[in-house]
């Protein structure tokens, strides 16, 4: 499992860990029942506090990406494709929303924005 931490980023480290593990699950690099490194192992490899790793793992479990079996380890949960699609859909929505906002800020009419959208979709 590859994780790269940017210590000067504004994104909290536990979120960086979560994002990268989620991305690997979504992309299929991590599959159902794959075991994640132990909290101490990842803390050692990333040279960060074990509590930071634990926070990332706890949140991943809450969001349903992983399952922790006490005394055994943390496993990748069965992929909930519906939820994952829902999440991806939300991301696309946010991106589109940003694009529309930007268009309006630049003074484009809604009609012009729609034209651009249609043009992009035709490609």
């Amino acid at each position: 499992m590859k994780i790269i931490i940017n210590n000067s980023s504004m994104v909290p480290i536990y979120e960086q860990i979560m994002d990268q593990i989620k991305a690997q699950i979504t992309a299929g690099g991590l599959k159902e029942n794959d075991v994640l490194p132990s909290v101490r192992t990842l803390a050692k490899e990333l040279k960060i506090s074990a509590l930071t790793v634990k926070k990332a793992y706890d949140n991943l479990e809450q969001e349903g990406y992983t399952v922790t079996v006490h005394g055994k380890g943390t496993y990748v949960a069965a992929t909930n494709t519906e939820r994952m699609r829902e999440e991806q859909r939300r991301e696309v929505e946010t991106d589109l929303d940003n694009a529309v906002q930007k268009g309006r800020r630049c003074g484009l009419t809604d009609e012009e924005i729609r034209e651009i959208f249609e043009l992009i979709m035709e490609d």
Partner: protein
Amino acid sequence: MMLEINGLVKKYKDFTLNCSMKVERGCITGLVGENGAGKSTAFKAVLGLISYDSGDITLMGKLPSELREAEKEKIGVTLAESGFSGYLKVKDIVPVMAAMYPGFDRERFLNLCRKFSIPQDKYIKEFSTGMKAKLKVLAAVTHNADFLLLDEPTTGMDVTARESILDLFREYMEEDEGRSILISSHISSDLEGLCDDIYIIHEGKIILHEDMDNLLNEYGLIKADDEQYARLDKEHILSVRRTPFGYECLTDQKGYYRENYPDIVVENGSLDEAITMMTGGERL
């Protein structure tokens, strides 16, 4: 709980230590402070090397004086001003370690000595400061201890050696989740990447205890000019210091200030900032 110190008081003529702290099982706890802040005094009191005036110390569930030999063997120690006799060589201390600690792993010790380029056939008095420091650490981690008490273990080591020694501590923790480490250092970066929680000690008192995760993610340094400082909500400011351009403020909620004062600079916090601000600044 591996170690619990409650209201420990040790009075000297011109210095009083008054501290409470805990080391949980499975945790690496750091103790940081200036020279003379009381770090070594605390370590010595825990180990029963000095008497103290009042307070309670519970080490592995018992009073330190009640620990039996077999339990004491489960503690690995490096102290700032002690070490092996200079008139010995590494090959002489191997049988000493084996006799003192039934859990001593001779092979591992010798392998580590090779890895850290510590000669076996040279008098320790001829060792460099860094080599002596490394040797103390290697002896502490190779007798299957459950708890390491490390007072300034990386002093005198160059940056590469320090990093490999810190990795050794990380591996030690990875091997068994019930282990704990209490480590002091005046090099903040050593502790930032290693510890799970941290105590800052100043003039004999603990002035801050925080999870390292919180300290690095939630703490921040606000840099404000006089006008900005005047309108700043002081609710989440821990400490303030006057600077040539205005004020520097340590906060434990940088997100709050970033959101509400987008025009004011809020830097990510670091252990160094926390120390200088908590010891040098004016606490609010």
